């Protein structure tokens, strides 16, 4: 069902549009998401396991009275966790009416880019697992994978 009005913000980038992205690490690789989806970044909270769910669902946390599910992308995409426990964070997203968090190994920074800096994924990744990837962003000599949140949480 295509609904133009509720289409994700990313689809409507114009070439010269300024975009802010939040860069973070999963394992050794750097990833990024559009800041407009990010609601907050927290230290690791007490996560309550939810039995009988997919393995990549880490559990739920209490965010000021709201119950927010936490997804473990490491498990979902078989990425080896790396870095210090102290640096781990939860990034909480608000996508339409869904609030959901992911665990990341480290949050690096917020970066300003232009929409044209996003390179289409087709040329970089060919595999089927690239569905959740919106594109690749090159900033200086760093390569960051821009995630398509709508696909991840489908």
């Amino acid at each position: 069902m295509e609904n133009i009005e509720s289409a994700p913000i990313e689809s409507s980038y114009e070439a010269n549009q300024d975009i802010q992205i939040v860069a973070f690490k999963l394992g050794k690789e750097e990833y990024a998401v559009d800041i407009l989806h990010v609601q907050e970044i927290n230290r690791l909270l007490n996560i309550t396991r939810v039995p009988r769910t997919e393995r990549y669902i880490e559990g739920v946390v209490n965010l000021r009275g709201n119950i927010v599910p936490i997804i473990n992308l490491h498990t979902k995409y078989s990425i080896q966790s790396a870095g210090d426990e102290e640096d781990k964070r939860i990034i909480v997203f608000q996508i339409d009416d869904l609030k959901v968090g992911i665990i990341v190994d480290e949050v690096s920074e917020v970066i300003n880019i232009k929409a044209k800096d996003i390179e289409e994924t087709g040329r970089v990744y060919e595999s089927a697992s690239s569905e959740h990837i919106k594109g690749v962003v090159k900033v200086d000599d760093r390569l960051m994978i821009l995630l398509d949140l709508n696909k991840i949480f489908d």
Partner: protein
Amino acid sequence: MKMDMSQYLDVFLEESKEHLENLNQKLLELEKNPDNGSSLNEIFRSAHTLKGMSSTMGFEDLADLTHHMEDILSDLKEGLLTASPYVVDALFKSFDRIQSIVENIENGHGGESDNRDLIEVLDGIKSGLGAQEAAAAAEPQLVLESPPPREAALSSVNGIDINEYEHSILQVAENSGMKIYAMKIEIDRDCLMKSVRAYMVFRALEEDGEVVKSVPSAQDIDDGKFDGNFTVLLVSKNGLDETIKRLNNISEISVAGYEAIALTQLAPRETSAAKTEAENLVLDGDVKDGKKGAKIKQTVRVDIERLDNLMNLVGELVMHKGRLEQIAANRKIIELNEAMEQIDRISTDLQSVVMKVRMVPVEQVFNRFPRMVRDLSKELNKEVDFIIEGKETELDRTVIDEIGDPLIHLLRNAIDHGIEPTAERLVKGKPAKGTVLLRARHEGNNVYIEVEDDGGGINTERVLQKAVEKGLIDTKQAELMGWDETIGLLFYPGFSTAGTVTDVSGRGVGLDVVKSKIEALSGEIFVEARPGLGTRFRIKLPLTLAIIQALMIAVQNEVYAIPLSAVDETTMISSQEIKMMQKQEVIQLRGTVLPLYRLTGLLGLPDPEQENESMYVVVVRKGDRQIGLVVDTLIGQQEIVIKSLGRLFLGIPGIAGAIVAGDGNVRLILDISTLF
């Protein structure tokens, strides 16, 4: 210039839906009783308002359709047209179209719609009048008891109808030497606040007299529903000179005339008195105390989200209260204990008030059904009398929202499978018309909703036969099955006994869906059936789902809540008491054998390396079965505020929701009905 109407859209949608519901309901009444003037009036008013609202909002297609509908309605009202089945059907179809347009608007698809087909039908009805019209015009017009006449001519007091109550007041006044006057007040055409002026008039009149009656009624005047003039019946001791003087001081009004009248000129009109009494209870109340334009019970429309917020906050409060209580208990501070008791009382009151605010009458759901039953029985060619009882019974909004679909299903079942075809009923010596009863009532902390029909009951043999055919059981099992078990088969997934698959039932959604929905609401469903006499489905529902009592337990390091309504008792057993029966662990509890389940296994936790000598067992109830649940620790009883886990976790078997515990951690609530 186009005004931005978007901010009114919500109100428009809300009100249109209300009007639509009203339209459907009243048209059903009219269909049953075509001479019912008051239903017709209501329909006319609702349709008129709908037309006005939609053209204000710029939904031209909608306004156009309602306009054509209104033409028919006004002909009905004038008696130029009778509410024949054809006309009623056309109106129902128009309502359906309006409904779908409104839904489209709600979903953001705009209000465009091609209604030419319907308009053609409506116009056809209108122009088909032709011959009838002349004849009808000669006939006396349909007499309508309400609304009250807008323009009461002062020269005669015929325009004023008084009921017996008012008559008796006037009688008393006249006997005590007071005089009765009729007075007509005009308010300037360009006066902006007519009701304020009217209020001032009433104040002035009542300084040394009493207004017994006004036309239009005080309430209508208060609401601004009058044309700029009104007539009052006034009793006064001292003549009207002073009063007139006072009235002359009020700007923008004038006294059009007044006269003293004798009570004999005002005979109470019995029929209309009785009717206005019944119809306008509130209005009568106004006139009765006659003092001022007293307000009717005031209500406020509140966004549901705000109510939910309030509920959340009360929930948090209850939670933190629990925490404070724990501190008070641990530290043994007497003063704190006393303060806690007060807070406890207040928070309990607060909770019950908020609960009450969230309660809505089941009417909201039930009102959809008469129309559905009508359409369905027409479609199936069955005659059905549909009776609703107890629609004022109140339930929490969360339950109301969920209960509609299961009830629709049960009603469909009753009409499709329950009620026999007319011919068959006559052979059996039953009345040709079947009866379907929908009843709601309170009992303790529960609400019971029953769907009852006087149809053929449940043919257990056919149920068994069908179950065998579908491979749900084998013939041997079928022979051994008692009544209860057989009925239980109805709730198996994919079971449907309808001989022929009709458009109505047999869509592959069975009673199993109804059952799971009811159980998700912490409710239960029971069936009673008498062969040849009828079937009754009883649904038992908790009054509220938001705050419940729960037993907190722990397995390994995880804490869970079990709704206390599902817990029968807790007990401690030693590991030697556990026996094996057909590969299932069981225990004996006071002579009954219970299956025993390990919560660790059910929740995917590793089994402990070493079994404890003694273990805690929570005896829970699933339907009419008792089951033992092995847990590590019993923490205690607690009031919990249920929160949803959100749509990412919809339908996890065994998990009913979550709570935020006193320590800020999330704990999960076990759903006993789906855990095993």
